[in-house]
């Protein structure tokens, strides 16, 4: 198209319309927004056919499966809004990161293309079924590409839903794949290395530092996104990371704590009870907020300190529990264990029937509660399971330090 502007004719390609302006890409590569009335179309371009993306297999390398759900690791510009959205699928990732081909042969399964804030328990279930099927069909490790915002929730969900003999590795990136500095390539390479390692559990593999030197391997039930934008946003809380992958050597080191490949037999328990919630207490919170959860099967509270809410809320909590809601107490401190036997409010809470969540992360406790209530009908049984360590989410003893 050609646009008259500033007494000069500019030739360019019409890209899109934004806020009533025509966005035109000039031959210099710059985009400008000009009034549509100043432009005339001179030629209609024929959409080019998408290039074929062929990935060759190398005999002798392990078979991995990449299940893509979307997120920054697979994001590109969306001309509708001008911002980034998830559009890549797994085979695009392979073409973009050629080093992956040196590590394994891949089957790719595009399961979803969503930003992770749009994840739901129903998609966790679909994901669990898909990953389970991949392992059943011979994958010696599974990589799940995922948006980072709720990756820790999904990793926890899969931890509970699948007993796995092979690594299930969640990976994402904090800086979009369309920038040369993206952390997607290194994270993906490290994830593939971890997926071919001796690991046998669900893990998150992401940058360990701001430099491109090491990725940390975090246990799926003990990991948290602790920074909005840094590469090393993911941290293990309550335990050290269960391993690391050096870059670019791809050397995987696992701690003695890591569950080893082949420890468990493949099994799928994909029931979830979605009517569960997580509520963070704050000073001045009123009981009506708790009443909003009437009818919920489970509620995780992120209390203050050792696991407290104000005395004012206790009758409302009591009412919830009496009506059949399971209430689990965790701490918004993130680090450390709840103990409701130290102060009066804590004791009052225990008397109402609140279950202490030990040192579980509030999010992990929520996911666990959904899973427990999806699989166990008996309340007493469910309460016991919430206080037992199922997938490394709950430490029996608290080690030193943070």
């Amino acid at each position, binding site marked *: 198209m050609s646009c008259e502007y500033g007494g000069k004719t500019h030739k360019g390609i019409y890209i899109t319309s934004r806020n009533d302006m025509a966005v035109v890409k000039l031959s210099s590569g710059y985009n400008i927004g*000009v009034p549509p009335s100043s432009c005339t179309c001179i030629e209609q371009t024929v959409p080019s056919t998408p290039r074929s993306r062929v990935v060759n297999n190398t005999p002798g390398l392990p078979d991995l499966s990449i299940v893509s759900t979307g997120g920054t690791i697979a994001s590109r510009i969306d001309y509708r809004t001008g911002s980034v959205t998830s559009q890549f699928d797994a085979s695009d990732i392979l073409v973009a990161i050629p080093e992956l081909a040196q590590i394994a042969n891949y089957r790719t399964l595009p399961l979803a293309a969503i930003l992770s804030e749009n994840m739901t328990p129903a998609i966790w279930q679909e994901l669990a079924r898909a990953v389970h099927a991949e392992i059943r069909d011979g994958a010696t490790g599974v990589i799940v590409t995922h948006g980072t915002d709720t990756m820790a929730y999904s990793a926890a969900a899969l931890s509970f839903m699948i007993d796995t003999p092979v690594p299930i590795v969640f990976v994402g990136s904090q800086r979009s794949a369309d920038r040369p500095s993206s952390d997607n390539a290194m994270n993906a390479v490290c994830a593939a290395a971890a997926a071919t390692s001796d690991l046998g559990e669900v893990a998150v593999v992401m940058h360990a530092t701001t430099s491109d030197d090491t990725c940390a391997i975090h246990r799926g039930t003990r990991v948290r996104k602790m920074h*909005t934008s840094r590469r090393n946003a993911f941290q293990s809380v309550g335990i050290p990371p269960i391993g690391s992958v050096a870059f670019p050597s791809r050397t995987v080191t696992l701690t003695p704590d890591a569950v080893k490949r082949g420890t468990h037999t493949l099994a799928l328990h994909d029931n979830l009870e979605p009517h569960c919630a997580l509520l963070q207490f704050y000073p001045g919170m009123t009981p009506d907020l708790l009443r909003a959860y009437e009818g919920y099967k489970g509620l995780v509270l992120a209390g203050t300190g050792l696991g407290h809410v104000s005395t004012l809320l206790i009758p409302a909590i009591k009412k919830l529990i009496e009506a059949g809601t399971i209430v689990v107490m965790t701490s918004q401190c993130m680090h450390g264990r709840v103990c409701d036997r130290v102060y009066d409010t804590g004791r009052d809470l225990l008397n109402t029937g609140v279950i202490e969540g030990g040192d579980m992360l509030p999010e992990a406790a929520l996911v666990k509660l959904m899973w427990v209530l999806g699989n166990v009908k008996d309340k007493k049984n469910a309460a016991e399971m919430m206080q037992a360590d199922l997938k490394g989410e709950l430490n029996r003893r608290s080690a030193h330090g943070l």
Partner: protein
Amino acid sequence: MDYKALGLVAGIEIHQQLDTKEKLFCHCPTTLREVDEHSGEFFRYLRATESEMGEIDRAAKEEMKRDRKFQYYTYDTTCLVENDEEPPVPLNDEALSVCLTIGKMFGMTPIPQIHTMRKLVIDGSNTSGFQRTALVAVKGELPNGGEIETICLEEEAAQRVKDDLFSLDRLGIPLIEITTSPCMHSPEEVQKVAEYIGMVLRSTGKVKRGIGTIRQDVNISIAGGARVEIKGVQELDLIAEVVRREVQRQQTLLAIRNELRMRNALVAHAASQDVTGLFKDTKSAVLKKAKRISAITLKGFAGLAGRELQPGRRLGSEISDYAKKCGVGGIFHTDELPAYGVTEEEVVRLRSHMHAEEQDCVVIVSGANEKQAACALNQVIIRAGHALSDTPVPEETRKMLEEGSTAYMRPLPGAARMYPETDILPVIVGETRWNAIVVPELLTEKAKRYAKDYAIDLNYALQLASSDKLPLFERAIHEKIKPKLAAFTILSTATELRREGIEIRAVSDEGYLAIWHAVESGRAAKEAIPDLLRSIAAGSPVDAALAQLAPAISRADLETIVKKIIATRSDFVKEKGKAALGPLMGLVMEEVRGSVDGKLVSEILRREIDAALTGKSG
């Protein structure tokens, strides 16, 4: 030289740092730091990404030939945005205003909706792997009839400390990029236009001053040659020389091509061989540590590989620059051998092994491994191939060396290096904003006005107008200081003191003004100005310097004042004796308003009290 007949066409791109409070896409100050003040460091790898059209830019592809590991220094004046660890803040509005003002000064048209782009740059100078840039205005006029094509607002790149180590203090400082059309036809004209644009930029009073704050890129081609972009010419005086030397280079490359064709020269991959074995016992340090040495016979290139293109640069240097992109240290060619530890005997053996005839040149590349040597050899073939092709001057981005010669950096980038910056919303420049912009007076106009209004010599006025102390001069005028006094201090006195090695920059504008006011009020003599500046530059507070160096009250005056005060209080003196010193001291100091050193006051006062008590007159 008749540049018109040669078909010289040149355009320039001027990059000037803007003096804004904050950086272009974060709230960090635009302060440059000393490298040893860095507070932390990290390293990253960069990789080329596709444009939104699905292509990889050719310049980026070339950079990908080597390991892209880069190290960065952080400071307490940089943040996560420079680290590429936080999304950018909206485009700095102050910087945009400066750009729009400059656009208006050139009679340009603003872009109604400004889109920030990412210009792919993976040489490490940007942590993100791209430089953010936005086209702000188009089509302006130059006095020579030429055109300013565009004004872009860009972020400054990180400063290279050494090799692949960069300092993040400079990254993100707003930079205006002014691109002219290819409207210049002689080296001198290029320099003049650059000077003019620089003057217009400084007229805003909103640009940074000093070495490195303005850089010129020059685009040059001659008939039969090709467009070559020479980056980073920092000294204005060198521009004409750079142009002259590039013309010389392109001319020589054209001549070499003709000669090569007459000789039926040939560059063929088949003429290459592994010659690692030939240099098994070599004394050459470079070849000794090479794991793989490859050679290629360039048919008909003898003597031409070594021909000088511009001072210090040969066709061999060009070929070497290409090979270096694979990470090798360079190449050897038989036009320059024996040398560098390679013996005559080895050369003979090499030539015979490579079946090189008299008119042929043999090039050897040494690599740390087979892959690197193959990459370098391929680059040699590409560059030597250009030399005898229809386009013997490749389209290139080149960097300036000392004195004005240049070296190859990478191919000219194409439009494929542009990608929309998705983290920044477009900015609308409405008519109201554009109309409200006040165009500042050009420095040249200002100088003419000074010359006329203040009866200052025009050359002097021009110097003053382009001095970074111009705001101080204007303040002085505003505070009713004599223009000649201020101009003389700024241009002559301060310059002389600087040449003496005095740290004259330590004197604040307030310091100058205090001195001038002292002179104007008769409190200090004009002759005392150099000493006052010296003292303030050495760290004295302004008042102390004035008190010490410009006692407005002479010793005799002081003695008179002291005698008068003692005489009017003789009873008090008699009653208190020597103890009268303290109370009288206060009275004298009040009288002289602090412009005399207290020690001197007390000395004279003590003597006069003694005299009064003993009845003798001092």
